[in-house]
């Protein structure tokens, strides 16, 4: 039998942690793009065409429903649905694709909701002033509203990144080999669950804690900086 030293365990976990990072980044960037599209869709429905009350209401409801759906169901179920749902349509999906799809949608719902709050925090007068300068909807958003919204959006967005990194741990359940799955596999080979899961937890901590601290620092700066 091959003996595993602590260094072997640590090294293999570290190699697997790369995939946790990759999956987190894919989900975060993908979720950011989809979340942005959702937000702009909602804003353009409510702002772009004055008087189109019905369209505005439908767009608002649709986004609220989307957010409720992803915030009101377990991420694990979303992963299972992506994994088995895509397979149902005859697409043979590898685990990492299903994980990336599910985590992207999950992230997009949270980010759209966070950013919506930030845009809502911009005083109405800013929109009106921009309108009175004859800027069209795209210009209002690009030059007036978004630059201000981004400033308040950065701290909670960075904070949510921690959530995404932790969420990727669930991808282990559908068989994607990232940090947690590697931990399970190494445990099965070494029979040292205490040591292995301690190492796994420490690695997640090493990934997440700096991000948490940075988010908190940004938050403090945003609160006192003005």
């Amino acid at each position: 039998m091959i003996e595993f030293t602590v260094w072997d365990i640590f090294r293999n976990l570290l190699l697997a942690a790369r995939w946790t990072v990759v999956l987190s980044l894919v989900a975060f960037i993908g979720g950011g793009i989809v979340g942005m599209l959702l937000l702009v869709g909602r804003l353009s429905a409510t702002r772009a065409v004055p008087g189109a009350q019905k369209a505005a209401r439908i767009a608002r409801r649709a986004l609220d429903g989307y957010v409720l759906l992803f915030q009101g169901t377990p991420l694990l179920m979303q992963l299972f649905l992506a994994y088995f749902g895509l397979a149902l349509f005859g697409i043979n999906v590898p685990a990492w694709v299903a994980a990336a799809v599910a985590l992207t949608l999950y992230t997009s719902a949270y980010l759209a909701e966070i950013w919506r709050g930030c845009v809502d925090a911009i005083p109405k007068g800013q929109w009106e002033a921009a309108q009175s300068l004859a800027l069209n909807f795209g210009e209002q958003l690009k030059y007036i509203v978004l630059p201000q919204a981004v400033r308040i959006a950065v701290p909670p967005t960075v904070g949510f990144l921690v959530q995404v990194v932790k969420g990727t741990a669930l991808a282990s359940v559908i068989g994607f080999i990232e940090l947690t799955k590697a931990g399970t596999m190494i445990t099965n080979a070494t029979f040292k669950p205490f040591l292995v899961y301690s190492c796994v937890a420490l690695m997640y901590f090493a990934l997440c804690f700096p991000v948490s601290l940075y988010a908190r620092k940004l938050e403090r700066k945003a609160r006192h900086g003005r």
Partner: protein
Amino acid sequence: MRVELDFMAVLSQWPLLAIGVAWTLGLTAISSVLGMFMGMAFAWARASGPTWLRWVVGTYVELIRNTPFIVQLFFIFFGLPAAGFKLSPETASVLAMVINLSAYATEIIRAGVEATPRGQIEAAESLALNRVQIYTRVVLPPALKKVWPAMVSQIIIVMLGSAVCGQISTQELSYAANLIQGRNFRAFEAFIIATVIYLVLSIAVRKLLNWMGPRFLFGR
């Protein structure tokens, strides 16, 4: 290609789903009560305990908040027996959920506790209340009232997180869905139904907690 969905195959197994729902709600109820009590105690420790205690609680909170729930659960269920603590899946699930919620509850309640006006504590002191009375009767009720929405959201997050407990064969809802799909190979339908039930549960539990908070915890 045509996709045929057969929801009846899953729904006919409703007793399994019902047991799953009961377990999910039971786990959530126990862990939210225990987790909240721990959160109240830890919030006190973090806000006004001795320095060493603040440091210990702070480390605990950061360790839990910056690691995934599934790893905490695996550590408790697989790791602790190696160190001599053998736990049933259900006990391990409750323990993991309580620990997880308590860390978040500490931060949430602390935010409310720290917002207590200085004058209220001084007024309580001048009425000769002792430190425990001041914390439980003067500081906590308005603090809980302030942070209740955040607390409710966190309890829901923990409830949804409990889906992971099925992985160590606790018989909660996601485990039931897994069991059903193992019997009839209707994986997609089983998980759709479980997801819908989770959605309904999270809406219902939010309503229930919003109703309960003012009545039983902090008055109106």
